[in-house]
């Protein structure tokens, strides 16, 4: 296996609030390969955005604080300083787009200028040259009449157009990684598909890696190579998209799938959406055992008292769940790898 492009290990992030300290991210590790897409899935507040924003140095500190962890870009530590050799990697090595394109662009600056700015800062281009390139980039992002549009302000764009402009901006310096934080959540369904297609095409053309944050399993199925399912600040299951979808090894993943609209009828021939009962635990006081125990339909006595370790189903597929322990009862629908084993390191 080649060296991963970006390797994050044991990231822990806390926030001080007036109500106490929130442990938003509780030991997250993952790796991103060049040209591949890693999707991080989870419901609101599970820490998926905080994870990438901490890596990108976008978490306000204080109140935020990185307790432990490391993030290495091609082997160089970038956590907490976001620069390599004194130059900011943001915008240059890692581009980023956000959930709400309407508020993510400066309302008093033209679209073209905002894109050109990145090139001026990172590549030292002249204003004129950078602006011309910005027009090209807008064209690449399939914005018609790019030259005219580049001179317009964000309020003159529609939401979908703005997200295209955001993408054009984020790939201006041809970064190795594009971080997309819920890029389609604020958009119409029809626009969503276009944006995802655009990202996919650009990935094919440039060979960049994508970290895609979403709560939408449909988006995951469409885009991802690798999937990490997050719950209450931890990755509870991780593996290839096929592993996670067809060999789901965590009850939470099962729950998410059951809550997703699908074309396939269930056993009774009905299309039923099953919500996951309850709500995520309070991260002011994370539970001692498995965070999902309170909502898990298969919870066992040990789940409340001991945090489950990662049980590997195959080399690149693991789930944090006691149901994979040899003495645990079998649960229907839950994949249990033949070689389920508990790695020594992550106990």
């Amino acid at each position: 296996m080649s060296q991963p492009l970006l390797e994050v290990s044991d990231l822990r992030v806390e926030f001080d609030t007036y109500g106490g300290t929130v442990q938003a991210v509780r030991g997250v590790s993952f790796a991103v390969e060049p040209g591949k897409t890693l999707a991080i899935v989870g419901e609101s507040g599970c820490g998926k955005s905080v994870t990438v924003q901490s890596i990108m140095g976008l978490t306000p500190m204080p109140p935020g604080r990185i307790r432990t962890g490391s993030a290495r870009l091609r082997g160089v530590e970038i956590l907490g300083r976001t620069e390599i050799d004194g130059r900011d990697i943001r915008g240059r090595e890692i581009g980023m787009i956000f959930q709400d394109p309407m508020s993510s662009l400066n309302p008093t600056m033209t679209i073209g200028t905002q894109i050109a700015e990145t090139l001026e800062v990172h590549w030292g281009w002249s204003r004129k040259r950078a602006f011309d390139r910005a027009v090209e980039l807008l064209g690449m992002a399939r914005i018609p009449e790019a030259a005219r549009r580049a001179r317009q302000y964000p309020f003159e764009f529609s939401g979908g157009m703005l997200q295209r402009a955001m993408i054009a901006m984020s790939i201006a310096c041809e970064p190795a990684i594009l971080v997309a934080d819920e890029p389609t959540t604020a958009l119409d369904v029809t626009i969503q598909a276009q944006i995802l297609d655009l990202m996919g095409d650009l990935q094919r053309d440039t060979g960049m890696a994508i970290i895609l944050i979403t709560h939408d399993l449909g988006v995951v199925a469409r885009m991802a190579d690798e999937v990490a399912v997050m719950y209450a600040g931890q990755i509870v299951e991780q593996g290839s998209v096929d592993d996670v979808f067809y060999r789901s090894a965590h009850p939470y993943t099962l729950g998410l799938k059951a809550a997703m609209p699908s074309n396939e009828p269930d056993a009774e021939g009905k299309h039923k959406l099953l919500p996951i009962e309850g709500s995520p635990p309070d991260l002011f006081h994370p539970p001692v055992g498995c965070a999902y125990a309170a909502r898990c339909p298969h919870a066992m006595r040990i789940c409340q008292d001991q945090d489950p370790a990662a049980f590997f189903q195959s080399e690149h597929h693991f789930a944090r769940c006691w149901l994979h322990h040899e003495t645990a009862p079998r649960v229907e629908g839950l994949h249990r790898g033949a070689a389920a084993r508990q790695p020594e390191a992550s106990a």
Partner: protein
Amino acid sequence: MWRYTVRRLIQGIITVWFIATATFFAMHSVPGDPLTQDRAVTADIRANLEAKYGLDKPLGQQYLIFLGNLTRGDFGISFTQKNREVNDIIREHFPVSATLGILAIVFAGLGGVLWGALTALYRNRLPDVVIMFLVILGISVPSFVFAALGQLALVNLNDLLGVSLLPVAGWGTVWHMLVPSLVLGLGTMAYLTRLMRSSMLEIVNADYIRTAKAKGLPPTRIFSRHQLRNAILPVITVLGPSIAAITTGGFVVELVFAIPGLGRYFVQAVQQLDYTVIMGTTVFYGAFLVLMVIVVDLLYGVVDPRVRLE
């Protein structure tokens, strides 16, 4: 842009007309009139005077005459300062008040933006704490106290240096204007500083600042190109109303520093019910304020593209 300007001007004219009408009838409903202010006069003389000033006509007719004169820009002759045209009074004393007020608003605006940006940059550190303490003082101390303290400080400063560094009162040179306009602008400056600070701090958390960081822009560039310009917008919106506040405060400063502005004439005229002077100064001030607010709004359009193109 032009259509917007014209529309605002028409609205402004309607507002001025309304102010004039309301003032006219409010003023005439007050018991007493300018003829009975200082001395008792015989019925004959009184009738003559009333005829001379047109006060014998019905109020409605007086109002129409007033409107007719107003469209020609003629406010008539003062009742209490004999044979002095109201236009002359305005021409002589208004530039003084306007200079004072505009200097004050410039002080307040520049100071407010500067201090506000500074406090936001040094949030919760010493410069922020010191400036915000002064700002709270500035908001809590009445303008006349500032005026008095300003004058006291000048007296002491001149005493201390043994030379007359800055004049303590009066009007004429730039040196006369310095302290009064600073004193006049102080309260507004404090208010604008607060506004600028909170605006800056709100924008620190804005999504587009996060985007700018994610683009890897250096902090200085984020501050100057993204934060500052957007933070100034709310400050500009309140500049218009601030001009009105400064005009009102101007009366006190003119009083304390013995500045021959229009304010003193205005207060005096109201006390003596000098109809023509009241109407003249009110309409003139009203028009000036309305115009300033329009100018500020047009200025806003220059800074904020969203407004410009509407």
